[in-house]
């Protein structure tokens, strides 16, 4: 029988072994009570029973704000040194792994983004099986089967079955060998739902619900706070700005998270706005999430993590659109 079982008591040793590959990050609880992905300084920090973090793991690949270019008169625009930190990101649920798979596609397929790629190369992904709650719905968007991991931990009462998903994963697993025991009896394989969900049916049709009264209903309540997009593992719109530095000659160009629910997202010079009302901005978000833009056209990018449904202060839930359809 394969030795692929990590007993729960070996987690501290497991973390020590991982630390030889890079800085270990995973779910933890901050002092003010928020679940976040952060640096795991000691085994006691790690919260393997977490439900979902407030911010998704996209922050490891697309920092909320980063310098992408610096300018100096003699050398022109130059990229700053690219990140050189290896990070092991631990305990990602299948939805968050799927979220990263989508970002990988958006940022490395057609026009590879050097900053994203540099970070991605240094990021190791270790998945963890999870229990759904009332907010999440990964099975309905086809994101329940784990993928895009280096290692994946399937939880059992006594510990974790580990499987590999990449060369890097195999290398790490080899180093863990002494911690692993014989498999427990076979797990029940994850349940598969054979009925195509209402979401997948609508998406395949390219549905935009043009006559739904929900658009106006959402628009009338939305606060344009942007929380739903901020917390989404696959929302990646960014703004770019440039600032002159104090010497009066050099400058720095930064990019930072933008938000399609904000008024300025569609605004051009002179105050013309291509999406001035909330209805238009909702439709824009819907189209991006469910139908895809440009090279990602035809790709559903909601991974069903449930964050937007949980955080929206006025309980707006795009899933209502699909319910109405049935």
């Amino acid at each position, binding site marked *: 029988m394969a030795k692929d079982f990590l007993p729960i008591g070996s987690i501290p040793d497991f973390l020590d072994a991982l630390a030889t590959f890079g800085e270990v990050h995973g779910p933890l609880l901050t002092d003010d009570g928020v679940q976040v992905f952060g640096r795991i300084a000691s085994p006691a920090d790690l919260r393997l029973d977490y439900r979902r973090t407030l911010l998704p793991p996209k922050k490891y690949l697309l920092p909320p704000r980063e310098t*992408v*270019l610096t*300018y100096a*008169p003699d050398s*022109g*625009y*130059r*990229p700053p040194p690219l990140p050189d930190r290896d990070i092991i990101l631990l305990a990602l649920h299948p939805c968050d792994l799927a979220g990263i798979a989508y970002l990988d596609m*958006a*940022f490395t397929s*057609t*026009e*590879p*983004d*050097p900053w994203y790629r540099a970070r991605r190369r240094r990021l190791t992904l270790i998945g963890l099986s999870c229990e759904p709650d009332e907010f999440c719905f990964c099975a309905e968007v086809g994101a329940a089967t784990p993928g895009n991991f280096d290692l994946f931990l399937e939880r059992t009462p006594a510990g974790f079955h580990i499987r590999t998903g990449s060369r890097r994963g195999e290398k790490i697993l080899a180093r863990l060998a002494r911690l692993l025991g014989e498999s427990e009896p076979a797990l029940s394989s994850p349940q598969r739902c054979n009925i195509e969900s209402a979401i997948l049916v609508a998406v395949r049709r390219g549905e*935009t619900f*043009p006559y739904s009264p929900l658009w106006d209903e959402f628009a009338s309540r939305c606060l344009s706070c942007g929380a739903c997009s901020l917390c989404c593992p696959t929302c*990646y*719109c*960014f*703004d*770019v*700005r*440039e*600032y*002159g*530095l104090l010497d009066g000659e*050099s*400058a720095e*160009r930064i*990019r930072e998270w*933008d938000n*399609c629910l904000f008024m300025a*997202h*569609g*605004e*051009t*010079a*002179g105050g*013309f706005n*291509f*999406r001035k009302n909330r209805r*238009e901005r909702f*439709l*824009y978000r819907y*189209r*991006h999430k469910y*139908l*895809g*833009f*440009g*090279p990602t*056209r035809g790709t559903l990018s909601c991974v069903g993590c449930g964050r937007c449904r949980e955080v929206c202060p006025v309980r707006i839930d795009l899933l209502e659109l699909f319910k109405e359809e049935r």
Partner: protein
Amino acid sequence: MSTNHDMTAIPLPATVIELRKLSDDTTLFRLRLDDAIAARRLKVIPGQFVQLSVPAGGEVPISLAALPGEDGALELCVRRVGHVTALLHTLAPGAGVAIRGPYGNGFPVTDWRGKNVLLLAGGLGIAPLRSLLHFLLRHRSDFGEITLMYGAREPAAILFKEELSELSGRRDMHLFLTVDFVSEEPPGGLVCHTGLLPGLLSGVNFTTENTVAALCGPPALYRCVVEELQGFGFPADSIFLSLERRMKCGVGLCCHCAIGELFCCTDGPVFRYADLRGVEGAL
């Protein structure tokens, strides 16, 4: 020379070599890429744009207002409207800027061989259409009748006045100008109608048979001109619109410029009306 991929991420240094003031708020900037090899390799399809960086200001999408000249110079016709464009307008010859691109699809000129081309420009929309006109005239025998209709707010806002008077003397193309209203200033010797561009369309004769229309102008212009064109019998796949949207990256990543499910930067900026019909918010 940097690789293609670098060109996508990192703007190449360029120098302002000449300025030509075209109106109160609009100037033609002639630039040259500092890297001569990169300049020679630059291939431009009329209607494409570049991302122009003004150091310490930022980056803006600007149409190439001409095909690269013999000397490799690029021409950008820029209106002063905000942060970056205002800073650009303070520059003098010799100043350093930077460029990446060209981006976007441009006009499908190879498909247009043997056809008549009707160019419709409103205001600053003349910028991308100028590069198209240059292309058509450079390959004059490949095309049928060429007609440019250009509308500006007032006589003082007509851009490229000298060029227009030259063009008006050509026998191998037709030129029609209109201004929304006539102020004190005379239109500088140019024959000029009064009224909006759609009005001009219905007032003059042109062939609709085997003709494609290329349109660029302020947002409000598209819907009425397209209606007018369809009234004349233009099929939806013979009407080409160069559209503008807020844009940050130019390469389909920042997600500000979608029109329906198409990106203005990578699927456009030139769209066939047939592909925009029924798309909420497109026009």
